[in-house]
């Protein structure tokens, strides 16, 4: 019954049932099918007939899917509130992650400043690699990593393309717009955190706002679009029951 289980999994995922929930349901159904087939064989049926009878007793894809889909408590948040999950949450995570590393940087600077033993002119250089690396990651990579996470989640959940794609567009726009600059307090001067926002630079060049936007969007949306193309040609349609007469 592998094809039926594959079909059932697709149908459950597309209806918004969580991947882990669907996986557990199917694993238990497979075990149940094996038990039923063994019981039918003990009753004297040939292996093929026993398997067919076991399948009939287990139930067909429509009934099995409907029994799970009818329970709304098993639907994921991405199915219940796709705009919140795919649009709001990634930008929120981006903002929180940026705020967290900036807060950590300020905390480290404050702590070091209070330890005079390090020498006032010496300590900023010790954390410069960390500060520069975090700023680089935040400005160039963080939004892309979050976008890949969003795309992977949408692929795993077989989400319709609209909300994840819109989410990737918004995330690329926000990620490219929010740029952080850090100036460490060297030589007794005050340090600075600069937060730039809004589009700038050439709309057709691959630098500045538009360059980052295009690169981020292409890098994250392409795998999602390719998966959808592959799925439509390789996986069974979830809205058609396979042959039930066998």
């Amino acid at each position, binding site marked *: 019954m592998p094809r039926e289980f594959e079909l059932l999994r697709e149908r459950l995922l597309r209806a918004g049932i969580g991947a882990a*929930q669907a996986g*557990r*349901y199917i*694993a*238990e*159904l497979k*075990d*149940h099918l*094996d*038990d*039923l087939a063994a019981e039918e064989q003990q009753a004297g049926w040939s292996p093929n007939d026993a398997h067919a009878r076991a399948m009939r*007793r*287990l*139930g067909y894809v429509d*009934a*099995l899917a409907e*029994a*799970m889909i*009818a*329970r709304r*408590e*098993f639907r994921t948040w991405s199915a219940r509130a796709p705009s919140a999950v795919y649009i709001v949450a990634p930008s929120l995570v981006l903002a929180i992650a940026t705020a967290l590393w900036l807060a950590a940087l300020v905390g480290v600077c404050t702590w070091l400043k209070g330890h005079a033993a390090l020498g006032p002119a010496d300590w900023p250089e010790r954390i410069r690699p960390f500060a520069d690396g975090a700023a680089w990651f935040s400005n160039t990579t963080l939004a892309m990593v979050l976008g890949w996470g969003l795309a992977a989640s949408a692929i795993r959940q077989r989400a319709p393309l609209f909300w994840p794609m819109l989410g990737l567009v918004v995330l690329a726009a926000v990620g490219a717009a929010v740029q952080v600059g850090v100036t460490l307090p060297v030589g007794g001067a005050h340090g600075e955190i600069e937060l730039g926002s809004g589009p700038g630079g050439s709309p057709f060049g691959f630098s500045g706002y538009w360059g980052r936007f295009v690169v981020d969007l292409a890098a994250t949306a392409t795998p999602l679009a390719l998966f959808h193309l592959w799925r439509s040609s390789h996986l069974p349609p979830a809205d058609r029951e396979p042959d039930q007469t066998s």
Partner: protein
Amino acid sequence: MRPVGTTNPAFMNGVPELLILRLLRSREMYGYEIVQAIRQETDEVVTLGEGVVYPLLHALERDGALASRRAVVNGRSRIYYALSPRGASRLTELAGLWSRLTQALQQVMKGDGYAEGV
């Protein structure tokens, strides 16, 4: 005797939950065992769809009425379900409700007061 569930599904509302909780009171079982036990204990009057029992088990577990554990038996991994303290309370509540309901129905079925009154 024809199974109740196949002749009139409306009569089955709430019955599978009650039976599952009652069966799991005595020992833990996996899905296949539960379906077979229901069939045997009710002399095949109540039969559950073999596959559709799992969403109900998962829902009961999510509500805290059941606890589950994975165990390997004879080389096969199984998920065993057991009644939790919360499930035991729920069973007591459902059994009381069911008892009052059946008593009331019996009273109506054997009496003819309504027909005489009409």
